């Protein structure tokens, strides 16, 4: 699928909303083909960071470079065109559409059929549709949703809906995948299954992954490196083991008194 994903470099990224500084000069680097976790207490700026990376929010200053491209200032769909896909913390799947059609939306950037071709049912549009539905079925099988393709996404259990959203992001054939709390609200079994899928994405597809997650078990198991944010500031950056024992991190999570 994607060989040699580019490096993602975040430098001095600052985001302010009317006086509130959500991100204050943070920076980190995601090496190709690794899982990089961004963690921190609630309100630390993790979701803001994702929204800047995917073009939903504008950065006040700083830079985000992906390969040779500067992402800050690009609209969301241009960032998607560069091979950056994301999932949402709260589901963004239309409940009425079938899983297959939801995943087909992920193929949007890879397909060309316009209004006229689709309206007239031109042969190339029909062929393109069939070819990409084939690929969608493969990706659904990769995450274990091949039997749910014909069901409306809204009728799936919560865990499978999150998996469907992950599959939809994979359908974009991304080079960089941003996962916003992929296992939140899942049962223990679903968590294990999803973590296995995420590890599989990195290992067999070579996609770089940025992961925002509260579940420390999943973070420690999956992440190759970890960035810790607190109140919009970067307080630690390193391997899972070094970050876990960092006093600043322990303070941020457990409070001042708990350092003893």
């Amino acid at each position, binding site marked *: 699928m994607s060989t040699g994903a580019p490096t993602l470099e975040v430098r001095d990224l600052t985001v302010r909303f009317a006086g509130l500084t959500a991100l204050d000069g943070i920076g980190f680097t995601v090496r190709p083909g690794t899982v990089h976790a961004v963690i921190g207490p609630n309100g630390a700026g993790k979701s803001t960071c994702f929204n800047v990376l995917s073009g939903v929010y504008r950065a006040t200053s700083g830079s985000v470079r992906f390969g040779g491209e500067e992402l800050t200032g690009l609209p969301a769909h241009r960032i998607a065109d560069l091979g950056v896909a994301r999932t949402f913390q709260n589901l963004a799947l239309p409940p009425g559409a079938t899983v297959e*059609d939801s995943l087909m939306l992920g193929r949007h950037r890879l397909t060309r059929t316009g209004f006229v*071709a689709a309206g007239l049912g031109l042969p190339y549009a029909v062929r393109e549709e069939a070819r990409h539905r084939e690929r969608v079925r493969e990706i659904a099988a990769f995450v274990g949703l091949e039997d749910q393709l014909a069901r409306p996404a809204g009728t799936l259990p919560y865990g499978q809906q999150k998996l469907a959203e992950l599959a939809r992001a994979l359908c974009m054939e991304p080079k960089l995948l941003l996962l916003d709390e992929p296992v939140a609200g899942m049962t223990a079994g679903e968590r294990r299954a999803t973590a296995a899928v995420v590890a599989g994405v990195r290992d067999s597809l070579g996609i770089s992954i940025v992961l925002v997650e509260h579940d420390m078990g999943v973070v420690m198991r999956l992440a190759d490196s970890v960035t810790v944010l607190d109140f919009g500031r970067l307080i630690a950056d390193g391997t899972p083991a070094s970050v876990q024992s960092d006093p600043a991190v322990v303070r941020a999570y457990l409070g001042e008194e708990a350092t003893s």
Partner: protein
Amino acid sequence: MSEPIKRLRRPALWTAGAVLLLALPFYLDRFWLQAGLFAMAAAIGAIGLNLLTGATGQLSMGHAFFLAVGAYGYCVLAGDSTATLTGLNLPSWLAAVLAVALAGVAGGLFSPIAGRLQGAYLGIATLALIFIGQHVLFNAHDLTGGFNGRDVPPLSLFGVTFDESELLVAAVPFGSAEKLWYVALLALAGCALFARGVLRGRPGRAMNAIRDHRIAAGVMGVPVARYRAGVFVLSSMYAGLAGVLLALVFQRTVPEYFGMILSLEYLAMIVIGGLGSVAGAVVGAVFVSLLPQLLTRYSDALPLVSAPGTGGVAPGEASRYLYGAAVVAVVLFLPGGLVRPALRRKTTTPGE
């Protein structure tokens, strides 16, 4: 029921429906043909509005404006030049095509705004189109004929002129309504199939994504503003074609007709029929446009409805109350519109 019979049932129903629609001009009188033509033209306009409002979530109050562009555009392009009216005297089929294109161009001129505004805000912006449009219609006398409107030149296609000159088909005299019936039927079928293709294909998925979750649509690679603008143009062209057909059916266009009420009627059609689907638009259009005709025809037999001008509730008024009530009832009890309960039953049976 056995599997093969079930599979044959759908095409069989479609064929039966098509044969029925094709045979109607041989049996119906002029009144019902006019009503049917009116419904078919409205259905085309409603499909266009449903692409924009139902499928993409962009409210438009300006649909009447684009209907007017189509109707008057056809009159100006196909009409004769007289002392008081401008007309380009083009072949009428070409004028019809160009009128639809003209509606598309008008939509295109507005599309920078349509691309940037979301949902209800677009609705407010498009209100301006109605007011500007009606002002022009009332005052650009040499193009529109002013308050009294202008006559609509009859369509002629392949040597057949769709006017009152009677053509005997299987011993049935075909006037303009009978002949136009087939043109309208063909146009509606084409428009419905085109819209269905759009909705089921890549553009439809992008449109629904914009409606359901605009931010996610952008993140999935859908250029949101460009799609909104594109759908706006497409929807304008549907309205333009509906306008041309309405003009041909009425044989005269008057500015009074293309007001806010008309835009509201089209919104009522798609809400009653079902938002976001072709079938919903057609069912809603038939309901909303046939209701006043039915009430007019049977006003003496219905309680509380009296002939126009006799003091009681006039049929037009009564029908407005009725579909006002229908909109409320549909929103409360059938959020998917008239076509959706049938769909839901169909999709759940195989699973159970």
